[in-house]
């Protein structure tokens, strides 16, 4: 079990981006609650960035054109804005949970078994929403602290990634996704626990979200976690082949 003070020893690894996503989120939450830590972390982060000074290299000229062209058609985010989701019943529940889940780092628990969270791992965003129950943090720590926790990752699309952290002894886990390919309007990502030909939904992302996480509370005999593209709002069972899978065994 990590002690509350012990997490701070991760400050160096955090500044070097040497943490997994879950640890990164847990640490960011720690920093959000500890102003003296925040100064050290900011300084170490600044220090780490200096390490890139010797790597200076002129990029190809086409990069400039390409970046400026994309910038010309890209809207800017407002300060501190969290991604919006449409407000139907399901999404309202998501949104209610999202704030707590974001503050917890990745996971929230309660009446609903699974929760997607808009990925907001930046300290800024965590700070704004750092008002979550201790239970969330305990659960996150519990999964990470168990000796048999396993972490597996698969690519999804050009830049996307699915990471599953599972503790067989707890029968419990988390799936994290980031940078999934953008989807057309009306489509959304849904994650499933798959046992043979049976798939059980573990969460539907808000429309437009490309990152999120869900808890895997009832792993049972499932051998795979998969993510599919579904109509917005999600489906009862998958209507397409998974675009990404991570084996559990």
């Amino acid at each position, binding site marked *: 079990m990590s002690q509350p003070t012990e997490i701070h020893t991760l400050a160096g690894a955090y500044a070097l*981006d040497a943490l997994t996503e879950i640890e990164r989120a847990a640490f960011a939450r720690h920093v959000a609650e500890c102003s003296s830590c925040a100064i050290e972390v900011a300084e*170490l982060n*600044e220090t780490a960035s200096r390490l890139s000074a010797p790597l*200076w290299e002129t990029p190809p000229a086409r990069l400039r054109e390409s970046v*400026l062209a994309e910038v010309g058609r890209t809207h800017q985010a407002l300060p501190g804005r969290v991604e919006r989701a449409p407000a139907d019943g399901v999404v309202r529940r998501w949104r209610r949970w999202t704030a707590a889940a974001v503050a917890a780092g990745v996971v929230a628990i309660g009446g609903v078994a699974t929760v997607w969270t808009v990925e907001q791992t930046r300290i*800024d965003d965590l700070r704004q929403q750092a008002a979550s129950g201790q239970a969330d943090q305990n659960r996150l720590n519990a999964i990470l602290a168990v000796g048999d926790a396993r972490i597996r990752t698969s690519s999804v699309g050009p830049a996307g*990634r699915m990471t599953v952290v599972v503790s067989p002894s707890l029968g419990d886990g988390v799936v994290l996704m980031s940078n999934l390919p953008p989807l057309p309007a009306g489509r959304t990502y849904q994650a499933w626990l798959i046992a043979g030909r049976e798939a059980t939904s573990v969460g539907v992302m808000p429309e437009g979200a490309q990152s999120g996480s869900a808890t895997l509370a009832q792993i049972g005999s499932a051998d795979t976690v998969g993510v599919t593209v579904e109509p917005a709002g999600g489906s009862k069972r998958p209507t397409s082949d998974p675009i990404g899978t991570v084996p559990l065994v």
Partner: protein
Amino acid sequence: LRAPQSRGKAGSVGRHANRGGDPGWQPAGPANTAPLGPDELLRQVARGDEQAFAALYDAIAPRVFGLAKRVLRDSAQAEEVAQEALVEVWRTAARFDASKGSATSWVLTITHRRAVDRVRSAQAGADRERRVAAASVETPYDDVVEEVTTNLEQQQVRRCLKGLTDLQREAITLAYYDGYTYREVAEKLDTALPTIKTRMRDGLIRLRDCLGVELGSAKGVTG
């Protein structure tokens, strides 16, 4: 305000003698009419100023590209990651908080995170392993030792890295230059996890002191 290439080049001329760039990217030399530093440029970018973004690009793209290329060990992927990172800079510029560090550091943090995210995705990671294996063995900070440079910050970084213990230096360079997690670093160096965590932190603290990093000074660049 500028022709894309010529002004971009001109922007670099002023700091040609220190092409590695300095932390605050203060105007260096008389070449231009007092070019703005990245912090001020980023502030203008946050207000939607595309010309300021172009100037910021010229100031910082070589750092972004060089870092992405070092982590990914692949030029094409480095270009993609550099583009993603720079567009994210444009998109989220309003979230930059100068009290937490310099604009340069903020941009490089975004870049580094995207680069390690990609390298840790299974396929890219495996590809990189092959490229690393195929490349001759080299320690990260020696990569560029042959590069002729008079840049003060580059020299300072090398000198300060040499001032670390071997374990501190190896832990930090494997994580930052190669994108390994601290668990992977612990495995590679055959060292206990808590030791690696500690060495990363105390090594960075030593580097911070050696490089004279102060948030106040980073902020001071832009007032």
